[in-house]
């Protein structure tokens, strides 16, 4: 486990499984289902649900819910496709809800 002077890690709020890194944050200004959420470029130790089309605040997107691989807690979603040109930058990136992740070791 790389820790301490290594990267700052976020964990699943339920089972403390490492799921993303602070350095991978692209934006902190997103809205999740229940509040504040962050956009990350990478995620780890997660499993994905089925793809579905959802109408979000910024338009129609194809998203897939992401779950913690250990405890199956829903942590956010992954953008699979965006239908508006201005939203294309989100494709392939992950949304983690602030309420579902905790800072680990920092």
């Amino acid at each position, binding site marked *: 486990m790389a820790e301490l002077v290594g990267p700052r890690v976020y964990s699943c709020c339920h089972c403390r499984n490492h799921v993303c890194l602070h350095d991978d944050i692209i934006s902190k200004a997103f809205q999740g289902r229940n509040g*504040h959420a962050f956009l990350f470029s990478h995620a780890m130790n997660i499993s994905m649900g089925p793809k579905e089309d959802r109408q979000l605040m910024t338009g129609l997107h194809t998203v897939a819910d992401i779950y913690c691989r250990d405890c199956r807690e829903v942590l956010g979603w992954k953008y699979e496709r965006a239908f508006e040109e201005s939203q294309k930058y989100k494709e392939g990136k992950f949304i983690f809800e602030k309420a579902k992740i905790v800072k680990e070791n920092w």
Partner: protein
Amino acid sequence: MEKRRGNSGFFQDRHWGRLGLVLGRLQQTDAAARLPSTDQNAAGAGKTEGVPKMPISECCACAKRNQVLDRVREPRDRKACRLVSRAFARAEAAHRRALRVLRREPLARLLRAFRALERLDLSACASLDDASLAAALSGADLAGVRRVCLARASGVGWRGLDALVAACPRLEAVDLSHCVGAGDREAAALAAATGLRELSLEKCLGVTDMGLAKVVVGCPRLEKLSLKWCREISDIGIDLLSKKCHELRSLDISYLKVGNESLRSISSLEKLEELAMVCCSCIDDDGLELLGKGSNSLQSVDVSRCDHVTSQGLASLIDGHNFLQKLNAADSLHEMRQSFLSNLAKLKDTLTVLRLDGLEVSSSVLLAIGGCNNLVEIGLSKCNGVTDEGISSLVTRCSHLRVIDLTCCNLLTNDALDSIAENCKMVERLRLESCSSISEKGLEQIATSCPNLKEIDLTDCGVNDAALRHLAKCSELLVLKLGLCSSISDKGLAFISSSCGKLIELDLYRCNSITDDGLAALANGCKKIKMLNLCYCNKITDSGLGHLGSLEELTNLELRCLVRITGIGISSVAIGCKNLIEIDLKRCYSVDDAGLWALARYALNLRQLTISYCQVTGLGLCHLLSSLRCLQDVKMVHLSWVSIEGFEMALRAACGRLKKLKMLSGLKSVLSPELLQMLQACGCRIRWVNKPLVYKD
């Protein structure tokens, strides 16, 4: 802090006047008999007539002068006293008890000048190393020094510590936290200070059981010890600690890989009152049971983030220690057993602080917690299942609550705020981040009923100007966080600045309706602001920053992605805010070398700077890094206009001073290896990051 010899009359006049004001203020609060009337007249006259005829220094006896100086606490006022005359400077120097040194060069002179020092803070002393510390200590008389802070002084090693311990025979407290290179040799140096009572080795990554052994044998009178993050320490070290340091009152073993055997050893420390075990993943319920059976007089226990601790373990802990005052189990428990709740009832008279962040709660849990009527602080951040009814049942019986943390409790509505307003009139700190269902109606109740409100966090709550109109009633407000509230406008800021004059911290992260007029109002009404976050408030221009220039107390300023500000705005801030320590200009695309020149010329106290993505060149960067002698932490990712030679020159210029750098990882292979080695040798840590050049917002 540099002393100036007040030769010129200019200094004397200005500071006589200031001194007059200070003495006048003291006069009002204290019996007139203490100060001879001649002095007061002389001081008062100084304001308008120039140099007074009868020097104050001759009038006051030394003891009286000390009495006066005892009451002069504000650093600005003390500085004024120093600059009045040589005699006053000497008197102040002889009286001074605490010293915080910012630069290495005057250290020797300062230590010789101040003979009554008790507290010495060298944590911000740029580029302090063993040689300069030892040299400075050798000529000084430091018999009175009791507390020394060397936090983050990564250049100091065992030689410097040897010199320190030898020079300060009465040393009682040393803070060596975050000196990540410190190890057993440094611990051995500190072990020579036999009178040591408080020691912080937090984040001294090199300390092992051997170093700890030396310390506990050499300093048997230790009362407070922090070993947080010293992950080389094992159960053996803790066992020896428990056998030798019987006076220990406070122990921090957070993040260590110690297990239940350590808790067995710790349970024998009879005087132990405070125990912190944050994120000790090798500790579980068995360990807590051992602790529960021990003979400590535990008052405060922190088991946050301990994955293997359950409510059962806490229940057995409480069983043995019915006088617990503070219990922090944030982010560790998954569920709440009845055994814990019934044992909680045993603490109903003593428990004042309870943190259960991250727990799945129900109304019955909150009802049980409500049984602890003396609760002062409750933490329910990110707890699922916190409802209005639950909060109501909690606060109706806990009317003494002062700190309530309900971050991310998104089921709460104005009804919860009404309950809090009705029952907890003494509430001082209220955290409601992401409680998106609350509105100005609930906040109106809070503002009317809770006049003591000092801190409120409304990040991501969608509050509007009407809410701020109500919050303006809280004239004691010190900290106001309104991040992500895009409906806040200048009108709302005008309300706040009209009556919250004590405001120290204001967070307007992404409140993008704020314009320069809002900042004008702030500068007018909230003169004591120290920390201000205006990131992404992209309507702000240079004239807005011009208003900020009148905030003399400003220390931390975050201005990320303010694309309209240029060097002109930066100049106004740098000139006016003389206490500026940190400024964040990431993605301020219009800031160029002119901005850096202004900082280099005026922001002489700057310690932390972020200029990633700014349009600066090597010339500006070089000038900046060579001029600012206190600058320790620089983030400069993607300075695309700076050449490799520019980086080399700039980094070499500041080599001995820099402690933290953040740069694009592509530079790692391009910068010369000897530069990187030199930086590392001087205690600088570099973070190499991979960030995209182009951002979408």
